[in-house]
């Protein structure tokens, strides 16, 4: 008895399950700074050549072999893709809260010396006066705010100007942004950080507000770009797709039951 339809429907249910997982992660991160929503991607599976109806009482006289057809065997999830649309700007008035308006990522150095990228600009100062992310990774190029600094002003081009005790001001560093050909292909590694990947391409560094790079806004944070209505709609769609695949299983099961009852007595 053919169970291909059952397995096809099961693959559809599994794909929708992953879809729901991506949606629930988006909803869980609705208040995460600079969180970018994920969408699950699907692809159809291979096709099988099936010969039609071996049950026949008539002989095939002309000898044609055209009686095969292609039957697909379901769907597979391929990847999850980040959607990098701009999140809303929320004002915080904290001088080390930075938001990127437009394209680009802050570059941070991980403890192992490699770089990661983030749009979460809620920076802090560590015990040595260096600017770090909320998870403790250094901003790169690194900027040190010494103890005599009263306040820092960060321009939209990323220049960091410190006002020292006594009223003198000086530029103590420039924040650079990294951009990617395909930001959607970046790998999310948690802590609001991304790693470059094969799909994203290599980063291009540049000054904020120049060419394609976005501007830096001091005293603002970028909110998550998750739209709750959109997620609810996707959730309904995923649930219904799951349901319709379960209906396939029910229908095929009924047909199998009928086949089992062909011989009644």
């Amino acid at each position: 008895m053919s169970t291909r339809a059952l397995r096809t429907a099961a693959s559809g249910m599994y794909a929708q399950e992953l879809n729901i997982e991506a949606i629930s992660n988006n909803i869980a991160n609705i208040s995460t700074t600079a969180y970018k929503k994920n969408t699950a991607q699907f692809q159809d599976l291979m096709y099988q050549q099936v010969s039609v109806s071996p049950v026949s009482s008539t002989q095939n006289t002309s000898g044609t072999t055209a009686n095969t057809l292609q039957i697909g065997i379901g769907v597979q999830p391929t990847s999850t893709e980040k959607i990098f649309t701009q999140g809303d700007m929320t004002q915080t008035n904290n001088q080390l809260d930075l938001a990127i308006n437009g394209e680009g990522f802050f570059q941070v150095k991980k403890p192992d010396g490699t770089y990661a990228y983030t749009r979460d600009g809620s920076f802090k100062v560590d015990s040595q006066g260096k600017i770090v992310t909320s998870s403790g990774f250094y901003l790169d190029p690194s900027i040190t705010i010494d103890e005599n600094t009263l306040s820092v002003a960060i321009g939209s081009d990323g220049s960091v100007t410190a006002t020292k005790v006594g009223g003198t001001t000086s530029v103590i560093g420039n924040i650079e942004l990294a951009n990617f050909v395909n930001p959607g292909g970046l790998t999310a590694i948690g802590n609001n950080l991304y790693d470059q990947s094969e799909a994203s391409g290599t980063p291009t560094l540049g000054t904020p507000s120049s060419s394609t790079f976005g501007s830096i806004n001091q005293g603002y944070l970028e909110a998550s770009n998750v739209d709750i209505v959109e997620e609810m709609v996707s959730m309904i769609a995923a649930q219904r797709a799951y349901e319709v695949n379960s209906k396939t299983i029910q229908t095929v099961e009924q047909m199998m039951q009928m086949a089992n009852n062909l011989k009644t007595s």
Partner: protein
Amino acid sequence: MIKGIYTAARALDARMQNIEIVANNLANVNTPGYKRELPFSEVMDKYGNVQVQQASDFRTGELAQTSNPLDLAVSGNGYFVVQNDNSLQFTRNGKFSISSDGFLVNQQGYRVIGKKGAINIDKLQSEEPGEITVSNSGEIKLGDQTIDNLLIVNPDNAQEAARTSGENFILGTNSFTSTPETEFQIKQGYYEESNVNPVKEMQDMILLNNQYDSAHKMINYMDKSLDEANQIGKV
């Protein structure tokens, strides 16, 4: 009488295979660029042999917006061409990315073909950084520099092309012509959704289920009649 049972059994078999096609459509209800397959029908040729007619529904799915510059959709006629080893395949799934060696590839890693061959974007990336833009006519630009034009084709007989995974169709012996620029527009930042309509599929499923039921009842009746025929002559 015996022949009738075979005919009905054949109906059972065909309905089961058709349900498999409906199941595959429903499993791919959210797959970008997926084209619905119609449940096949059987026709009799002039020699009295049963032939199968299988068809795909090539209607355009809805275009969904994303923020990925490498999501492309063909609005209108035509297909993207991708290369798997040496064979060409065509697809409406325009979810592309850049491979590690700088080629524009589809989700399976097959290279996307432009008018000058495989499209390489990375080489120029180091010399002149800039955004990738794709115009309505399929011209791919990096910053101000034109890299290539997407090859958009129309197979001469799309219905005869075999399907393969990744929403691709194999050209095989099929010839194709490139689509005139007036017949399509490339939409950057969009992808084409699956054209499966679950309502239609459920309708097909109910219909097939009922036909299966009828064929099943036919066999039962014929079985009963044969049984009664066997009783004739019994004392």
